[in-house]
C-alpha cells in the first residue's frame, strides 16, 4: 500500500451501486466495497443489505442510534465477527476487490492487514514497550525492536510523553494515553486499514481532540473507518459519513440496522437527502 493520489473531490456522492463497483479497474480508490451485506447473530438479522464503498486514505464515519449495527458492520470488515459463535456474514465484503470471506482467506492474516482500536482502551497489562512490540513479535520479529516501538509511538503522537518510561506498566497511563498506546500498538503491525469503534467515548475532551488530530494525520498513511456516537466528531474528522438506523418489526419484535444514507460528510450534515438523516444530525431524533 504505497501512497496513492486520491483526489478527495472525485468521490461519488451517492452510495455506490453494484455496477459502479464492478467497473472499478483503474486506481484502487476504494479500500472496501460492500455489496448487499447482511450480518446475522444466529437467527437475528443485525444489519441488513448494506452496499457501500469505503475510499482509500480517507476517514469514513459510521453514525446512528445505538443498536443500529455500527459495531457489527465494522467488525465484519476485519472478521472480528468470526470470534462470536453464531455470527455470520452474507453478501460480498471486498477488500481491494478480494472477497474477504472467500475460502482461502485467513482471518488471522486479515487482522494483520486491517487493525482495530476499541471503545475502551485495552492495553495489555505489560510494559508500554511490550505493548507496542507485541504485534511485531507475533510476526516473528524478535531481537531489538526499539526503532519499531519508537516509530509507532511517534506515529501515535505518544513518544514524547512516554519515552522515559517505556518499561512502565501501561496501566499507569491516563485513559487518553492508553488509547493512543492502543493506536500505536495497531500501527506497529503496519496495517493498511485501522478500524476504530468509538475510540473516544471513554475519554475527556482534551484527549479526544488529540486523537482526532491524530486520525487526520494517520489518514495520510492508512484508511480509517470510525464508529462514533458523537456527531460533532464525525463532522470534524470524517471525509464521508454513513448514517444507519434501526428498523423495528412490530410483528416479530426484531430490530434490524439499515444504511439510510452515505455521502460526503458535508452533505450529510448540511443537506442530507433523507429526512431521517436530517432529523438525526439536527438532534431531533435519538
Amino acid at each position: 500500500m504505497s501512497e496513492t493520489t486520491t483526489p478527495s473531490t472525485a468521490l461519488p456522492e451517492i452510495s455506490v451501486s453494484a455496477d459502479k463497483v464492478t467497473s472499478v479497474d483503474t486506481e484502487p480508490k476504494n479500500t472496501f466495497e460492500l455489496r448487499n451485506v447482511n450480518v446475522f447473530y444466529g437467527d437475528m438479522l443485525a444489519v441488513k443489505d448494506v452496499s457501500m464503498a469505503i475510499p482509500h486514505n480517507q476517514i469514513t464515519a459510521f453514525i446512528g442510534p445505538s443498536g443500529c449495527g455500527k459495531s457489527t458492520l465494522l467488525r465484519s470488515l476485519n472478521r472480528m465477527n468470526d470470534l462470536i459463535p453464531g455470527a455470520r456474514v452474507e453478501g460480498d465484503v471486498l477488500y481491494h476487490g478480494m472477497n474477504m470471506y472467500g475460502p482461502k482467506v485467513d482471518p488471522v492474516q486479515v487482522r494483520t492487514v486491517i487493525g482495530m482500536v476499541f471503545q475502551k482502551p485495552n492495553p495489555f497489562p505489560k510494559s508500554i514497550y511490550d505493548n507496542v512490540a507485541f504485534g511485531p513479535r507475533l510476526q516473528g520479529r524478535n531481537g531489538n525492536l526499539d526503532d519499531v516501538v519508537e516509530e509507532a509511538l511517534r506515529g501515535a503522537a505518544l513518544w514524547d510523553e512516554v519515552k522515559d518510561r517505556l518499561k512502565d506498566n501501561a496501566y499507569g497511563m491516563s485513559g487518553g494515553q492508553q488509547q493512543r498506546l492502543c493506536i500505536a500498538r495497531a500501527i506497529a503491525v503496519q496495517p493498511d486499514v485501522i478500524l476504530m469503534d468509538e475510540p473516544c467515548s471513554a475519554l475527556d475532551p482534551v484527549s479526544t481532540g488529540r486523537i482526532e488530530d491524530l486520525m487526520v494525520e494517520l489518514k495520510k498513511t492508512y484508511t480509517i473507518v470510525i464508529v462514533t456516537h458523537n456527531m460533532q466528531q464525525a463532522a470534524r474528522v470524517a471525509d464521508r459519513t454513513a448514517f444507519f438506523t434501526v428498523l423495528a418489526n412490530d410483528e416479530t419484535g426484531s430490530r434490524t440496522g439499515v444504511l439510510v444514507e452515505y455521502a460526503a460528510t458535508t452533505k450529510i450534515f448540511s443537506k442530507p437527502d433523507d429526512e431521517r438523516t436530517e432529523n438525526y444530525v439536527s438532534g431531533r431524533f435519538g
Partner: protein
Amino acid sequence: MSTSVVSPGASSGGAPIRSLEAPGPRIGEKIIKAVLWATATLSILVTTGIVISLLLPSIGFFQQVSIWEFLTGTIWAPAFANPSYGVLPIVVGTLTVVFFAILIAVPVGLASAIYLSEYASKRVRKTIKPILEVLEGLPTVAIGLFAFNVLTPLIRELTPFLPWTGPFSIGVAGITVGLLIIPLVASVSDDAMRSVPASLREGAYAMGATKFEVAIKVVVPAAISGIIAAFVLGISRAIGETMVVLLVAGAGNPVLSFDPTKGTQTMTAYIGSTATGDISQGTITYDSIFAVGALLFLMTLAMNVLAMRLVKKYREVYD
C-alpha cells in the same frame, strides 16, 4: 438489621426538615461486626493451636536429638534398638513425590486449563468443570489402590529397562499424586484465566494473534498470579498427601536414595504409619512425629512465602 426507623423530622412551615442523626444505635450492625471478628479470630486461633501442638512435643524431641543431627543425618531409624534420627531420607522421599507430581500436574493441569478456558465450547466446559470438581474430592485411598493395582504394573511394563525391584516405588507414588492434583490445578487455573477480561483477548486478536498466541501471550501472563496460586495449592497437597504414598511407595524402611523405582517413606508416610494405636506418649518416637510435622509445616510455609514473592514479581495488574 435496624428496625422501624421513624423519622423525627420536625416540620417547619413547608417541607418537613429531616433529621441527620442516626435513628437508633444500630445494635445489629455492632453484633454482626463482633460475630465476624470472632470467626476471623477463631481461624487464627485454630492455626496457632496447631502450631503450638506441633511445637511443644518437638521441643521434647530436640532436647534429646540435636537440630543439626536431625536436619543433616542420613539415617532415619527412630524405632530401632539403636535409633537414628537423620530426617534427610524421608525429606528426600517427600521431595521426590513433589518433583514427579509437579512434572505431571503442572503441564497437564495448565494445558487442561487453557483448553477449558480458551478452546472448549460452553457446553463442553459445563460438562467437564463439575467432573473436575468431583475428581478433586475423590478419596485418595481409592486412588492409591488403583495406582498400586493398575498404574504400577503398567508403568513397569512400559519401562522394562528401569531397575524395578519390590512392589513399591516412590516415583510411581509421585506420578499418582500428580494425577491426583491435576483437577485442582486445572480448575483453579481455569478460573484465573477466565477472569481475564475479554477485551484483552479482542485486542490481541485484532493484531493478528492466533488462538494459541492469545492464550499463551496474553491470557496466561495476565492470569499468572492465579495460576501460581493453583500450583501452590497443588504442591501443598502433594507435600501433604499420605494415603497414596503409603500404598504405592510402601511404608518400608526409608533409605536415603534418589532412585524413584525404589519404595521409601515420605515425611507424611512416616507420620501416618507411626502414629498408630500402640505408640505411647512421652517416648522419643512419639515426639519425633511432631518434629517431622513441624518441619513439614515449615516447608509448606516456605513454599507459600516463595509463591507470594513470585506472584508479586510476575503479576500483571489490570483493572
